[in-house]
């Protein structure tokens, strides 16, 4: 059978504080253009709803008013909060959206004017009926560790709906490959950004990477990163990068933070999400964790 020529469109816009790149293939140019526009709109909407910095966002509204009152949020924000709380439960608090105070103290997020509870955690965040959110104490949430993955998933949904047959959405390194074609994704070396530390081939799969990149700060004379273990408040130091592949980008995004803190102890959770991870250490060889059922014929090491 003679196949019609496949059209491929690749676009990039500055969103979510980074570069969001969308590539999509299909048979119909107009449909693809509409799909890409809708996909970028979804990302913009996630940005509007979940930005920590925009005072009109759901996140800012919650941080202002969810204590002592309560706030009604958009269903998308609700969905991200629900997933975040699920990961907090499953990781026993390693993943915690209520650690904005720590990030603010260390200069990654702006300080807020209210006095915050020093011991507030995800357990003080309550998701009530009808998209209503209530904080039991004065706290701040930051969805930065998960909203980008959600934005990627929403964009992929919009592309599929428009009839795109395959493609990739890459929001500053958090990405999802969909459709019949596989894509090679190169992993930038965390401390040598001009170099490639590894490569993976993905099909129908999302991947997120968290690492100590350019976002390193000094705190009390020590180099720290924005990767913080929600239970101990400590920054992870030995590991410099964790990439997680999973079926959706929101899960992959959240799991990178958990693997960063727990490493091998995250194996059970990784298996539950059928996720794989690639870990890079400062002076070591790359290593990876596979979920048990993963069929990977090519487990070649990079060294």
């Amino acid at each position: 059978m003679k196949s019609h020529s496949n059209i491929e469109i690749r676009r990039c816009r500055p969103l979510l504080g980074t570069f969001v790149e969308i590539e999509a293939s299909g048979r119909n140019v107009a449909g693809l253009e509409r799909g890409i526009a809708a996909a970028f709109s979804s990302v913009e909407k996630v940005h509007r709803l979940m930005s920590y910095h925009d005072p009109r966002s759901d996140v800012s509204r919650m941080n202002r008013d969810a204590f002592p009152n309560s706030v009604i949020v958009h269903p998308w924000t609700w969905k991200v909060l629900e997933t975040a709380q699920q990961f907090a439960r499953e990781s026993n608090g390693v993943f915690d959206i209520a650690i904005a105070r720590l990030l603010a103290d260390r200069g990654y997020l702006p300080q807020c004017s209210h006095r915050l509870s020093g011991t507030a955690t995800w357990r003080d965040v309550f998701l009530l009926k009808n998209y209503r959110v209530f904080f039991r104490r004065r706290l701040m949430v930051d969805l930065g560790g998960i909203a980008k993955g959600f934005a990627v998933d929403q964009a992929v949904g919009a592309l599929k709906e428009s009839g795109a047959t395959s493609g990739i959405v890459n929001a500053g390194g958090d990405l999802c490959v969909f459709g019949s074609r596989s894509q090679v994704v190169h992993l930038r070396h965390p401390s040598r950004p001009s170099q490639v530390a590894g490569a993976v081939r993905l099909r129908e799969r999302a991947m997120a990477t968290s690492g100590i990149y350019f976002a390193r700060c000094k705190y009390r004379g020590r180099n720290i990163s924005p990767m913080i273990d929600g239970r101990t408040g400590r920054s992870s130091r030995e590991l410099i990068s964790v990439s997680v592949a999973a079926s959706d980008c929101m899960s992959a995004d959240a799991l990178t933070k958990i693997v960063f803190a727990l490493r091998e102890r995250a194996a059970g959770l990784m298996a539950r999400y059928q996720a794989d991870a690639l870990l890079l250490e400062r002076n070591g060889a790359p290593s990876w964790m596979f979920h048990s059922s993963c069929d990977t014929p090519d487990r070649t090491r990079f060294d």
Partner: protein
Amino acid sequence: MKAEFAFIALPVSALIAPSAFAVRYLTVDQAQQAIFPSKSFTAAPVKLTSSQRKAIEQASGLRVLHDEQQVWRVSGDSWFIVDEVVGKHEFITYAVGLNADGSVKQIEIMDYRETYGGQIRDQKWRAQFVGKTSKSPLKLDNDIKNISGATLSCRHITDGVKRLLAFYEIALKH
């Protein structure tokens, strides 16, 4: 569909490359159609006077590197502007569509180039991009298509758009 996931062995050379990385997303024509589909465009380049330049710098708090700005008037009183920003490692050409009221309609990245080793501020290095069309793509490790790992900040674009909005107020708005 079954998900597929495999690690790939990299040749040693790939671990050292790339020292540069470039993607061309859109030509000027394509960017115009992407932001203002089926509109007509009239080139209206602007050469800034030194006082306009100073006014833009004062209003935006940002330096104006070029006196000339590539501008098109779009049917329906909108504007299409092509601009570039230079970061420590990035050199980005992008297009901004402005609505008739001066608000931002859409931003599209046209060219994204990243390089290491300090060449980016070098005029000669930059000159090699002048006059390039989609028919002569840059061959700087174009094998690499998708990158994960670093969340690069788009702060320079944000600043650039801020500067262009001041440019609109001072040089375009009547």
